[in-house]
């Protein structure tokens, strides 16, 4: 066990955890930020995605020892009232079904839109195929990303 300092959603936190505990468990079980999900533990499904400097990263692939002194944003940090353009677009397209993969999907979309503010279908396909949804929300998710892109552009204007 070690004391590890990290920043989550702009708040400095200190946790006492096993060195090899992945960030996803620090978030879910130590900090009670359960919006970050656990779907495979081996970096395949994407449901544990969080943002670091705006880039999507997999929290199950980052052990505590490596998470030290880094800053992450979880779905709770995007907004609690669903006001972030990605969350809004998701609601307007009624994307979610079971909802379990959705925080990871939304944050992956945030990462995509940061690099590609006006993504092509191919860019959406490539980036979003890295997250798995078993309910099959993909067609609505694609619509929501286009809608979020428009909302973000509007916001910048």
């Amino acid at each position, binding site marked *: 066990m070690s004391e590890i300092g990290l920043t989550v959603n702009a708040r400095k936190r200190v946790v006492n955890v096993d*060195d*090899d505990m*992945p960030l996803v468990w620090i978030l879910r079980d130590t900090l009670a930020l359960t919006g970050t999900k656990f779907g495979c*533990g*081996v*970096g395949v499904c*994407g449901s544990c*995605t969080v943002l670091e400097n705006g*880039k*999507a*990263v*997999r929290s199950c*692939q*980052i*052990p505590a*020892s*490596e998470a030290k002194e880094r800053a992450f944003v979880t779905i709770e940090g995007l907004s609690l009232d669903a006001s972030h353009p990605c969350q809004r677009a998701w609601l307007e397209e009624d994307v979610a079904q079971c909802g379990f993969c959705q925080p990871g999907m939304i944050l*992956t979309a945030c*990462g995509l839109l940061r690099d590609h503010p006006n993504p092509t279908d191919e860019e959406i*396909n*490539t*980036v979003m*195929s*890295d997250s798995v949804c078993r309910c099959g929300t993909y067609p609505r998710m694609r619509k929501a990303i286009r809608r979020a892109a428009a909302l973000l552009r509007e916001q910048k204007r």
Partner: protein
Amino acid sequence: MNPFTYIKARDASQAVSGIAAKPQTKFLGGGTNLIDLMKMGVETPAQLIDITRLPLTQVEELPGGKGVRIGALARNSDVAEHSLIQQRYPVLSQAFLAGASPQLRNMATVGGNLLQRTRCYYFYDPAFPKCNKRNPGSGCGALEGYNRIHAILGQSDQCIATNPSDMNVALAALDAVVRVQGPKGEREIPIADFHRLPGSTPNIETNLQPDELITAIDLPAIPFAARSHYLKVRDRASYAFAIVSVAAALELGADRKITAARIALGGVAHKPWRAQKAEKELIGKTADEKTFRAAAEAELAAAKGYKHNSFKIELAKRSIVRALSTLTAMAS
């Protein structure tokens, strides 16, 4: 996971002396493969040396037009997007983009990618009693087991696993050179000698010594590699390991005569498979489908399939034809 100690290395020599000081030590780069294997109980290091802070992340031109050097800790995504790589070695950029997912590419390092371990089920899951790679002498579970993803070239009766990396295939086609640092100093290992065929020691996968650190990968200048291509054949539209892949570059002279060719295959062998027989077959011939098919036949003549993977022989031939046809179409 097995408990382990964790230290951060400041520089390469500290990392190398650290690994020599304590047995069962591993370097930790992006961790995308090692952490998985530790969770599965396949890898059980007693110590991890975090090398991510070492200054080995540059992609830079070698002096005198000798090619390009990629730092061992450069992230796969950064290399894929680097203009030097995109312009001179598109096959490598494409291989990165075909590999893993964007998020894993953001984490994975090129040094780690070189050491990526097989996806053979029998290796990956310690529930299986037989695996000569994980537990030398225990046998090969895949030989008589479910072997759809396994090797058709260069395998032995000890191991039929494949190397899962896309990057390695491109490096094999490009004659890359791996630069390593050990207690006795630096040395260079040509990519063809870096990975090993399984033979009777499938547990030893590379010729890298346990106390050596990969510092860089050098790509020699190959002007015709500016027209190169990576073809990945997989089971779903994206995001899956290759069942077969081809890295290829072609140089065409007058009348579409082939003057130089580089071909490497992925998903078919324990190491990235440089297809020298096919290359030889192509030289001096006209670039057309008949020539490509003949070259593919020559390379795969020695291939051997098992219960579930014999399809790979024909699939590999077709993939070679497609990759070379794509390059030829780009030329015209």
